[in-house]
């Protein structure tokens, strides 16, 4: 819209009101309340019912405003003494509408040079509660909510520092959502910030329903199964990442926050690890990586050994295994695929069912299907054990994106191992390693600190040492200020 078109002072009052009425036609939730001022002039209060704090608006904005005489109303200095916290003036029609949509109350008066915007926003939102997908034992049970202002408040409460900055963007052609990039100035690298902001500024899409949409548009390798952005609902995790110089992308309407840049090893860390003794942090971290390896390779290994390399089975297992396999009519690949696909069906069904059905599915799936399949002679005992261990191992990874990647990779490994035995697993593993090595997250190598080798970051990512040794920030986000504890100044 043309600037001149937009300016309220360029057109007579009636024209402006008609324009606004036309825009707000068939929007019954946006209310235009007419009031009569002195000298036969009229004014309109425009607000969205349900997004404003009705009590405060009536008491502190409408009442004092209407008590003013018409001359005082035209004087902006007097208006600034209105007892509301957020008071602005604008001459621009589009800004006016934008603010109404955000939840502010707007007053347009005939004869007033500018419209008054008062932002006493209050709407219903979810309570701050623990996110269901990321639980922990020893930390805070707070999680982000859908309103971006509340999220920004939560972050500000965690980092009480003026260096916590938010860069705001409005994205989505039809939805006009607010998006913020949070970072700590003085720690975060300005080059990375610039790249990120450019990418978000270039976004050109209808509407971004979740933060995953943003991720998919701005990541460097859209065809890779591995996630290059870490999604989280927890403010403590976000704070820890901000302190390392990373960026958090927040989107209005979704409680999930996207952290970038990230490395492969950060998907295997939970906040709990840093909250307890370093010995347990290291132990559990290694258990997680071991679980990820098992989840990807165990079924493939099972298939390849049974199909090609019988001689690697130890003597004590030789005969019981043959006995249990002899009753199964299928070759190992079909047997494994059968069980794995059943498990995938089970998993998908339990994710979206209402809670009271989930428990019974657990019993049905776990015990009955497994046992019954063995009794019916469809699968062997060892296969059931393998599938169960794989399933449990794939749940160990704390991040859901990485868990999805592992599930898909497992099937590829199984197919290749059935075709080529151990060499199939080999080639797949080498290709996965090659892929991980070329991946980058916001330009930073994905597989550090292992490759490229950065030994001083080991104590953070691969193993966990005592907190006293962590005096320097890891290199992932190329922070400006390497030493922790200087306040980010």
């Amino acid at each position, binding site marked *: 819209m043309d600037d001149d078109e937009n300016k309220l002072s360029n057109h007579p009052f009636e024209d402006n009101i008609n324009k606004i009425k036309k825009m707000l036609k068939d929007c019954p939730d946006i209310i235009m309340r007419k009031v009569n001022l002195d000298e036969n002039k009229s004014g309109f209060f425009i607000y969205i019912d349900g997004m404003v704090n009705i009590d405060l608006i009536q008491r502190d904005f409408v009442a004092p405003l209407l008590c003013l005489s018409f001359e005082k109303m035209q004087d902006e200095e007097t208006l600034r003494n209105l007892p509301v916290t957020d008071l602005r003036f604008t001459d621009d029609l589009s800004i006016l509408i934008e603010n109404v949509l955000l939840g502010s109350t707007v007053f347009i008066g005939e004869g007033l040079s500018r419209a008054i915007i008062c932002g006493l926003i209050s709407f219903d939102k979810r309570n701050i509660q623990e996110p269901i997908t990321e639980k922990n034992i020893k930390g805070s049970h707070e999680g982000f909510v859908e309103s971006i202002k509340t999220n920004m408040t939560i972050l500000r409460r965690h980092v009480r520092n003026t260096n916590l900055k938010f860069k705001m963007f409005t994205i989505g052609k039809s939805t006009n959502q607010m998006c913020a990039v949070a970072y700590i100035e003085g720690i975060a690298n300005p080059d990375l910030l610039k790249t990120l902001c450019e990418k978000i500024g270039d976004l050109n899409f209808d509407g971004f329903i979740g933060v995953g949409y943003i991720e998919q548009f701005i990541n460097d390798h859209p065809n890779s199964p591995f996630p290059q952005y870490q999604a989280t609902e927890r403010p403590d995790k976000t704070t820890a990442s901000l302190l390392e110089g990373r960026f958090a992308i927040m989107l209005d309407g979704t409680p999930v926050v996207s952290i970038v840049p990230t490395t492969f090893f950060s998907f295997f860390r939970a906040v709990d690890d840093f909250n307890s003794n370093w010995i347990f942090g290291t132990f559990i971290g290694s258990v997680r990586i071991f679980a990820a390896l098992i989840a990807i390779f165990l079924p493939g290994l099972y298939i390849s050994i049974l199909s090609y390399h019988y*001689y690697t089975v130890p003597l004590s297992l030789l005969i019981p295994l043959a006995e249990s396999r002899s009753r199964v009519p299928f070759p190992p690949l079909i047997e494994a695929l059968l069980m794995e696909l059943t498990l995938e069906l089970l998993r998908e069904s339990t994710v979206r069912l209402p809670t009271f059905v989930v428990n019974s599915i657990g019993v049905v799936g776990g015990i009955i299907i497994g046992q019954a399949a063995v009794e019916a002679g469809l699968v062997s005992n060892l296969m059931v054990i393998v599938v169960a261990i794989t399933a449990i191992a794939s749940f160990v990874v704390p991040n859901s994106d990485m868990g999805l990647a592992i599930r898909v990779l497992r099937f590829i490994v199984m197919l290749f191992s059935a075709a080529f*035995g151990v060499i199939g*697993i080999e080639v797949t593993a080498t290709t996965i390693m090659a892929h991980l090595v070329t991946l980058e997250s916001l330009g930073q190598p994905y597989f550090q600190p292992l*490759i*490229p080798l950065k030994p001083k970051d080991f104590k953070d990512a691969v193993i966990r040492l005592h907190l006293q040794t962590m005096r320097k920030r890891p290199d992932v986000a190329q922070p400006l200020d390497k030493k922790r504890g200087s306040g980010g100044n």
Partner: protein
Amino acid sequence: MNINKENLITSKQFMILIFSTMIGVGIISTPYLLVKEVGHNAWLSALMSGIISILLTIIISRLLNIHKDKSIFGINKLLYGKYAGMALNSLYLLYLILKTSIILRLIIEIIHIIIMKTTPSLILSILALICPFYMAFYGLKPICRFSNFVFLILVEIIFLYFVSFSHIRLSFLLPVGNISLPSLLYSMRSTAFSFLGFAFLWLVYPVITDKKNALKYTIWAMVLSTLLFTSTIVVTMGYFGENMLKHIIFPVYYLALVYKVPVFERIDLIFLVIWFPALSMTLKAYFFVTYYWLYQATGYIFPKIKSNANAFSGNNKNKNSLTGVKDKKKKIVFLILFSILIVAVSRILKDYNHVLKTIEITDMIGVSLISGMAIIDLIISLIKNAAGSKNKFKAERRAKK
């Protein structure tokens, strides 16, 4: 030759690249040839090969320092003129192609002999080439990053040596040196297969960022791999004895075959499986280097093929530019043709012993080419430099007068 700045490598990465290239295939296949010739003095031979390679490295590095920022192909063209230089370069390129094919064939033979006997070689070639193809597309930096994995894998070989340590009979290695020096020198040609890895220095020199450290780190890589080779030969010789070792074609694998683990009984398959990335690393490095220089060479002869994005660059960040997409397509087509060439050449050989003979011939060519080029080029460059500085000196004196 414009180089994409994002894919330069440091000399430390270069060191790891050379180290993993040299030991990948070399450890599994080479000790056999060496031991067949010299018996229990093979470790002396390996040690001396290492020393001579280090000397050659110093010569090459001196040569490269004189001509700054050029690779061997550029230097040859400079020193010998356009046509003679091109002829020499093509000879060297042919040698590189042959060597890449032999490495591919070696890997396939190892898989054939040890794991799967009847799977057709074509399928195995495709499997083995998937990774080099993928990484050659992305450039040199990811290949260097991948080579870091070799350090993790090295642990298993060292573990194997520790475990076999108690069974080593030192008497198998004695008496030392009861062999004539000429035959020792002659036997060193069998080690050339892996030790010629230092020749990467003059192929990759233009993209190394801190060139003054290049010599230091290359020598480190040579020292480490010489150590590893010598200890391999010492351990396998001490364990099996020279007569038996003359019959075993994969000594390190045999060592893994012999060790009986308490629970799993046999770990030879696990050994090979874990070692596979190192094998493919050798193939990747040679594949990429040969492909890159072939690309450059054909770009020189047929300018239509040459493009702005060159192979040292990885994923072209400029997704929207037309030249970016076209270049990617050109690159992929060239890669496919190149892979087909390598597979075809590798099928010419008949069986493993034929491969071993071809390795000997190729390495004789390689050794003579490389050492010849190195020494002669250095001498000519020194003479030219001396002449050049003499001219400069004369010009200065004239200017002073």
